[in-house]
């Protein structure tokens, strides 16, 4: 069986001692930043990117992936104990998790969150294995025309499913595309919008852009608000949930996993949508919906399972098609390109050890997280005692060093500062910066494929609708847009995202 061969190959890579170590480093860092509110996985991954340059491609991706799903675990700890979501994905966990903690059941809440996450992570890994091969073989038939349409679909779907105003997010995608074309034009060698700055000839590095928009701008905005942080102080003794708890949580866990897996594959599904949907479904299915918000264990199990499953399956479009589902996956593409690997369906056949190694490492990583999170939960709670006034200068410094380190250029540090100001402006006018990053990363590929497609068709744009696969992809885009304009869906979306 090809499938088992692949899995075996993946496990071989993932179980190498050094890869296990990088996986551990990744999940530990991930848990730490997940626990700490105010710093998310995007700036962290951006910060570490320059230093993964010296690692083997598989090791670097394994570590960065670990940061991402590790952050989902850590975020729930803070949500349950402090009622502050450590990450956006754990907003829903606050509702019932913190209630449970207030009732003195913090132990079981943490345990159920960790167990649900582990269960979901394991199932999601299997789903990735099952879906990857057929998707990748389909993608190998793609030409520039299909690729262009696929990227358009990816960008649109990411915008529509993510939170925030759709029209503003679309505008942000185009802004990202625009700064993506800065640099020397590959076909003609002409410098575009470099303003005579030699550092811009190779295009804008996305690390300074990401760190400025997400890291520094967030810090500036956070500092304007007074700090509120109250830890529920109680002994975390009874970590083992009762059989009754497990029985109540299990079906919710399974449903959450499947919702999360399905939504995670969709571009933009990423981290925010799955837990909300799972929570809403549990509430609908429950015999007594009024228990929710008052410490219902299903309200912890389902969203936790969903967010972990979603975090992992969002790797599917990246690994099989080379298309990022969200801003974090865009950074992963950057990590691949830094290693000299052009993302796309060919990666799966050319670098099987890398792809399957990363997939298998998710399982080992989840196992590590279970151990890191349950017995060691006290360590993470004590981290919450570090006040933000000490934390943020350190984050500013790490952003500076990381940005400088990517190509030893002071120019990048200034660029990051500029992006921080722009990012602060975006926060003030209420626009999500994530779509910009997607546009920036996909921009050059999109232009390249569009140009190639137009060359093939002699400048006839109808080629995008006469080719069947491309037509279907673009049809989905039109459907999505039409659906967005219908008032009924607009209302449910608003409710789902606001709840």
């Amino acid at each position, binding site marked *: 069986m090809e499938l088992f061969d692949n899995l075996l190959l993946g496990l071989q890579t993932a179980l190498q001692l050094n890869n296990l170590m990088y996986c551990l480093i990744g999940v530990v860092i991930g848990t730490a930043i997940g626990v700490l509110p105010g710093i998310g996985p995007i700036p962290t991954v951006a910060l570490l990117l320059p*230093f993964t340059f010296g690692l083997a491609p598989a090791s670097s991706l394994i570590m960065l992936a670990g940061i991402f799903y590790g952050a989902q675990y850590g975020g729930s700890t803070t949500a349950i104990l402090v009622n502050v979501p450590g990450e956006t994905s754990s907003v829903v966990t606050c509702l019932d998790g913190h209630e449970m903690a207030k009732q003195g059941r913090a132990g079981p809440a943490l345990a159920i969150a960790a167990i649900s996450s582990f269960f979901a992570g394991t199932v999601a890994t299997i789903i990735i294995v099952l879906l990857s091969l057929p998707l990748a073989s389909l993608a190998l038939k793609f030409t520039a025309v299909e690729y262009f349409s696929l990227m358009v679909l990816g960008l649109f779907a990411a915008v529509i499913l993510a939170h925030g105003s759709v*029209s*503003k997010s*679309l*505008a942000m995608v*185009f*802004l990202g*595309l*625009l700064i993506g*074309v800065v640099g020397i034009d590959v*076909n*003609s060698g*002409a410098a*575009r*919008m470099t*303003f005579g700055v030699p550092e811009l000839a190779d295009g804008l590095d996305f690390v300074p852009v990401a760190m400025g928009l997400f890291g*520094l701008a967030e*810090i*500036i*905005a956070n*500092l*304007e608000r007074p*700090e509120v942080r109250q830890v529920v102080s109680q002994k975390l003794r009874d970590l083992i949930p009762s059989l009754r708890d497990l029985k109540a949580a299990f079906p919710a866990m399974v449903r959450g996993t499947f919702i999360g897996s399905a939504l995670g594959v969709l571009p933009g599904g990423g981290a925010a949508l799955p837990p909300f949907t799972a929570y809403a479904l549990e509430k609908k299915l429950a015999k007594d919906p009024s228990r929710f918000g008052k410490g219902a264990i299903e309200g912890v199990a389902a969203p936790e399972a969903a967010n972990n499953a979603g975090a992992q399956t969002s790797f599917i479009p990246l690994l099989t098609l080379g298309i990022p589902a969200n801003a974090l996956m865009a950074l992963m593409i950057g990590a691949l390109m830094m290693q000299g690997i052009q993302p796309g369906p060919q990666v799966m056949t050319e670098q099987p050890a890398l792809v399957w190694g990363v997939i298998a490492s998710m399982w080992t990583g989840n196992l590590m997280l279970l151990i890191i999170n349950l017995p060691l939960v006290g360590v993470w709670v004590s981290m919450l005692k570090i*006040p*933000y*006034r*000490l934390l*943020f*200068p*350190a984050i*500013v*410094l*790490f952003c*500076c*060093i990381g940005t*400088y*380190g990517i190509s*030893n250029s*002071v120019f990048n*540090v*200034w660029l*990051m*500062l500029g992006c*921080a*100001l722009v990012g*602060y*402006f975006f926060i*003030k*006018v*209420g*626009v999500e910066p994530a779509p910009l990053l997607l546009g920036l990363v996909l921009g050059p590929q999109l*232009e390249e494929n569009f*140009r190639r497609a*137009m*060359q093939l*068709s*002699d*400048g*006839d*744009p109808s080629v995008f609708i006469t080719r069947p696969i491309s037509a279907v992809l673009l049809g989905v885009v039109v459907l999505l847009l039409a659906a967005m304009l219908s008032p009924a869906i607009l209302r449910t979306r608003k409710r789902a995202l606001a709840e």
Partner: protein
Amino acid sequence: MTRRFDWPDLLFGLFLIAVSAGTFAATWRLAGGTAADMGPGYMPRAIALVIMGFGLFFAGRGVVRGTALGIERVQARPILGVCASVGAFALLVENGGLALASLACILIAGIASRETRFAQLVPFGVAIAAGSVLLFVKALSLPVPIWPW
């Protein structure tokens, strides 16, 4: 003020218009080419055109829509503190060395918050600066001087 504006929309729209206009100004020398054989100026101008459209739409909506939406007041201290801190790092890192740049970065960043206690921040900054030198220069071999001499 007599008229009420939706400020977030209006400002975002104006920002997009400015970016788009800037793009046209920066690329007007580049050849556009045709759709079948695009020149280097084709894509930037095409994208800028779309952005211009979005900009006009938001700016227009911000003016027309009668709902007055303000923007949370901008506080000078966090912005100035963080900017000065990053600027100090950029100016110092190559000539002053990483140790000095790190310490300056942390201490100046402290200005950004009202809650900073410098008696606490100074030893913390020294420790983090030392840690950064060890981690980034010694362990991860980032090629940057440690000391100004």
